[in-house]
């Protein structure tokens, strides 16, 4: 029997399998270090959409994600002259920065604003989306918000950001075994939460 390998979803962005491989961002970083503004565009083309999606999923707000991305790329411009090859990939470092900035925002936000009062991030600017799709997306978001932070981050990095297990473990500063444990618990928890919330309308299997 032929086994299908599903095409990557819209969330999926191809990344190399190992941090040990050569980093495709290195030549671009060298140009940025030399003051080449055009090289900044190249780096943005490669990473902005994906990092913005990560921040939006973390924060539930496109405006907050905008600010996080601006801050992250200012740090990237500063980091470029000091970046050394041979360690983690630059994209891994960028994910780490966005994750940390998003965590900071979540912390300060929790001190002031209840989560229920946050704007709906997913489709604020796309009214053409069907109401059903909006509802499902919101339901996933709400379920993910109920997961412990580390589990949610592991799932975001591996499922939506397309990082390999090694890269995601590096971003979260944990071993691959620990990452797998986080992922498995996240998926189990999410399944429980969603099955509780979706049986009513979607005909969930089992």
């Amino acid at each position, binding site marked *: 029997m*032929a*086994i299908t*390998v599903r095409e990557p979803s819209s*969330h999926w962005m191809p990344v190399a399998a190992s941090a040990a491989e050569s980093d495709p961002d290195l030549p671009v970083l060298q140009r940025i270090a030399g003051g080449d503004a055009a090289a900044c565009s190249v780096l943005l083309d490669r990473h902005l959409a994906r990092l913005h*999606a990560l921040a939006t999923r973390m924060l539930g707000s496109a405006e907050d994600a905008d600010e996080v991305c601006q801050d992250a790329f200012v740090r990237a411009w500063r980091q470029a002259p000091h970046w050394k090859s041979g360690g983690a990939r630059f994209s891994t470092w960028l994910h780490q920065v966005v994750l940390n900035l998003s965590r900071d925002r979540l912390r300060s936000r929790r001190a002031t604003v209840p989560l229920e009062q946050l704007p709906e991030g997913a489709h*604020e600017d796309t009214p053409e989306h069907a109401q059903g799709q909006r509802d499902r997306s919101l339901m996933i978001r709400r379920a993910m918000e109920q997961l412990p932070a580390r589990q949610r981050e592991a799932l975001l990095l591996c*499922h939506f950001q397309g990082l390999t*297990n090694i890269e995601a473990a590096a971003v979260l500063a944990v071993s691959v075994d620990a990452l797998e444990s986080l992922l498995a618990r996240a998926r189990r928890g999410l*399944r429980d939460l969603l099955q509780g919330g979706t049986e009513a309308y979607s005909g969930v299997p089992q």
Partner: protein
Amino acid sequence: MSSMNPVRLSELLDTYGDNPLRWPEEERAAALQLLASSAEARALREHASWLDAQLDQFEVAPARAQLRACILRGFPPPMIGWRVWLRELWQELGGWRLVTPAFAASLFLGAMLPNWVEQSAADLPDEDLVADVQFIDDDFWVQP
């Protein structure tokens, strides 16, 4: 090549979901081989695919077009660290408008002061200098 069996495949699916592209590279081929040959393995994958389908519905709006331009305006980045400190100190001191006259004045004083001191010493009578030294000397030898 790892030893793949339904138990390990189930762990892979529970951890990474049903899309082989998300599985660890070193186990992918063996897992696909097992899926091709085992109905049990395919049922496991079917079970995992429901959650992946749910997750794929968590969409977010793309970044607005202006964001890119905003970020590019941040290049080159503002200076940080000691350079910022030095710049702020410079501005605190008044920048070129105050520092240039101050520098010129110090140059002028540096050049002129030795002449003025020499002139003052030359104007002082020699006997006054000797009397002063003698007075100091007497005080020094006074016993308690």
